[in-house]
C-alpha cells in the first residue's frame, strides 16, 4: 500500500496548523521572526527543518472590478514523495530510501551531508539543515533519532518531510493531516486519495470552479506524486514547476558527451605522442 497526501487547496484557510503540528511532532527548530511582506507568508519555502509551508497568493482586483473577483489562494506545500525521486536517485550513500509505505525517507544517521540531493530535487524541497539550526554543543534531534551533528562548522545532513514515518509505523495519521481543521490535507492510500480527488475536481467543476490535479496521471519524468495537489491556478503561481524534470534523465547525454570528448582527445593524444 502506498500512502500519501492529497492537499486540496480549495479547502485551505491558511491557518498554518499543519506547519505548527509538523514542527511540534518532529521537534524541528523555529524559522525565526523574519517579516517577508509577501502576504501572510513568513515561512516562504520548504527547507531542511521546515517540512510544511503554507503559501498565500493574494490576487487583488482592480478598483473598477466587483470585489467578488478577489481571490486568495492558500496552499500547504510539502515534499511530493515522487514515484521517481530525484533526491533518492542522486544520493550516493543510500541514505534516501523508499520505505514500506512507499514514501521517500532520509535516514539521518546514514546521510553524510554531501548535498547532492539538494540541486537534484526538481521541486526545491530537500535542503541541508543549516548550521544555525543546531544548538551549539548539542545534538539535533528529529524523528526520534539523533542527527549526525559532525559538521557543526560546515553544515548538516539533509532534511525533508518524512511523511511522519514514525507515526505511520504505529498507525497514526501524519501530524499535519491530523491537525488540519478543514481536511485540506488528507492522508491515506494514494489510489483511494486519487479517486477522491478526481471526484472533487468534478464536484468543483459542477459549481463553476475550474481546478485540476497536480501530480496525478502526469507524463512528467518524476512520475505521479504520492503527495499531490488540487490547484486552481497555474503551478507557477504556487511556486511549483510547470515542468518538473527528473535529473537522471540527463545522464545518458552527459555520459556520452564526456565519453566522446575523452575518446577524441585520446586519439589525438596518441597521434601527437606516438607519431609526432
Amino acid at each position, binding site marked *: 500500500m502506498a500512502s500519501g497526501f492529497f492537499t486540496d487547496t480549495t479547502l485551505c484557510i491558511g491557518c498554518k496548523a499543519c506547519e505548527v503540528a509538523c514542527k511540534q511532532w518532529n521537534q524541528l527548530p523555529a524559522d525565526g521572526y523574519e517579516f517577508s511582506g509577501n502576504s501572510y507568508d513568513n515561512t516562504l519555502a520548504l527547507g531542511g527543518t521546515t517540512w510544511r509551508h503554507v503559501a498565500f497568493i493574494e490576487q487583488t482586483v482592480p478598483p473598477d472590478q466587483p470585489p467578488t473577483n478577489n481571490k486568495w489562494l492558500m496552499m500547504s506545500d510539502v515534499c511530493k514523495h515522487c514515484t521517481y525521486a530525484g533526491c533518492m536517485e542522486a544520493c550516493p550513500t543510500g541514505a534516501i530510501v523508499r520505505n514500506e509505505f512507499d514514501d521517500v525517507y532520509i535516514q539521518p544517521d546514514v546521510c553524510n551531508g554531501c548535498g547532492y540531493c539538494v540541486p537534484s530535487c526538481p521541486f526545491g524541497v530537500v535542503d541541508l539543515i543549516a548550521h544555525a539550526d543546531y544548538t551549539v554543543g548539542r545534538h539535533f534531534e528529529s524523528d526520534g533519532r539523533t542527527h549526525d551533528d559532525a559538521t557543526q562548522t560546515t553544515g548538516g545532513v539533509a532534511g525533508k518531510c518524512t511523511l511522519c514515518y514514525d507515526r505511520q509505523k504505529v498507525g497514526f495519521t501524519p501530524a499535519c493531516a491530523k491537525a488540519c481543521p478543514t481536511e485540506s490535507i488528507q492522508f491515506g492510500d494514494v489510489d483511494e486519495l486519487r479517486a477522491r480527488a478526481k471526484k472533487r475536481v468534478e464536484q468543483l467543476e459542477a459549481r463553476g470552479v475550474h481546478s485540476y490535479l497536480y501530480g496525478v496521471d502526469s507524463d512528467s519524468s518524476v512520475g505521479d506524486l504520492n503527495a499531490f495537489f488540487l490547484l486552481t491556478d497555474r503551478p507557477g503561481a504556487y511556486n511549483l514547476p510547470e515542468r518538473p524534470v527528473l535529473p537522471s534523465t540527463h*545522464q545518458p*547525454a*552527459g555520459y556520452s558527451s564526456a565519453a566522446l570528448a575523452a575518446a577524441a582527445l585520446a586519439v589525438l593524444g596518441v597521434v601527437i605522442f606516438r607519431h609526432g
Partner: protein
Amino acid sequence: MSAGQFDLSQLNPDASFRGASSGEPLPAHASPTYYDRPLLKKPHWEWEVVTYLFMGGVMGGSGMLVAIADEDGDDWELARSARYLSFGLAAACPAILIKHLGRPERFLHMLRIVKFKSVMSMGVWGLVLFSLPASAAAAAQAAEDGLLPGMFRHVAPRMLVKPLQGLLGAFIAGYTGVLISATAIPAWAIGKRFIPAFSVCSGVAGACAANAAVLALTDGSERTFARLERFELAASLAELALLLGFERHAGELGKPMYAGARGAKLRTWTMGLGIAVPAILNLIPVHARWKTLLASALTLAGGYVLRETLIEAGKASADDPKAAARQPL
C-alpha cells in the same frame, strides 16, 4: 497580465504540468511566479567542491597522459611526472572531500553502496578505483627512481596498469561534468551535452599544463615539451569552442554563467588568460622555462575559474523561479 485579470476559465491545467515530457516549449508569459521567490534550492558547494572538480580534472588528465606518453622514448620524464602527479592528487582528492563533508567517517558512508543511478556514487568509486593503478604505478616509478626498494618495480604490470589509469582518468575528468548537469538546476541541465565535454577538455589541458610545469622545473626532452604544448593547444581550443557553443545553446538559461560580472570573469580568466594567451605562448617557437611556467599557470588558473564559475552560476540559476518553472528536458 496582472494577477487580478487572470481569467480562470482560460486556465488549461493540462497544458502546463502535462507538457512535461512532450518537449513543447511553454509560453514564458503564462507562468506567474511566487513573489519571485526561488523555486529550487541552491547547492551548498563552496571552494572545497570547486577545488575537487579542478583537481579531479588535472588528475584524470594526468592519468590519460600516463597511458598516452611514449615512456620508452622521449617522454619518460613525462610518464614519471604524470604518475607522481596522478598519485599525489588521488591522495589529495579524498582529503578535500572529507573537508567538504566535515569528518572522515562521512566519506566512508559513500562506500556503503555502489549505485549506478547516482553520478556521485559512480564518481567516488571511480576515484577509489583510480587510486589503485595510480598508487601502483607511482610505487613502481619510485622504485625505478631509487626512492623505494627494488621489489616495488613489479607491483604495476604495465599492460594492465597503463590502460586502466587512462580509462579511469578519462572517467574522472568527465564525470564531474555529468554530476553537475544531471541536476534540476536549469543552467546546468541545459548543458548536459557541453559541460561534461568541456570538463574533459579542461582536465586534459590542465594536466598538460601541470606536467609541463613540473618538467620545466625538473627536466624534460624538447620533444616532450613540443608534444605537450600541441596537446594542450588542441584540448584548450576544443574547450573554448564548447564554451562558446554552450553559450549559444543555453541562451537565456546560460545568463547566470555568461552574463554580468561572472561572465566577464569567465571571459577574462578562462577564455582569455586561460586559453587564448597560453595558446599564443605555445605557438611561439621558443623553448624557455619562463614561457612554459607562465602558460601553465594561466591555463591552470583558467581551469579553476571555469569550475568556480560553473558552481556559482548554478547557485544563481537556482534563484531564478522563471527558469526553474520550465526545467530543460
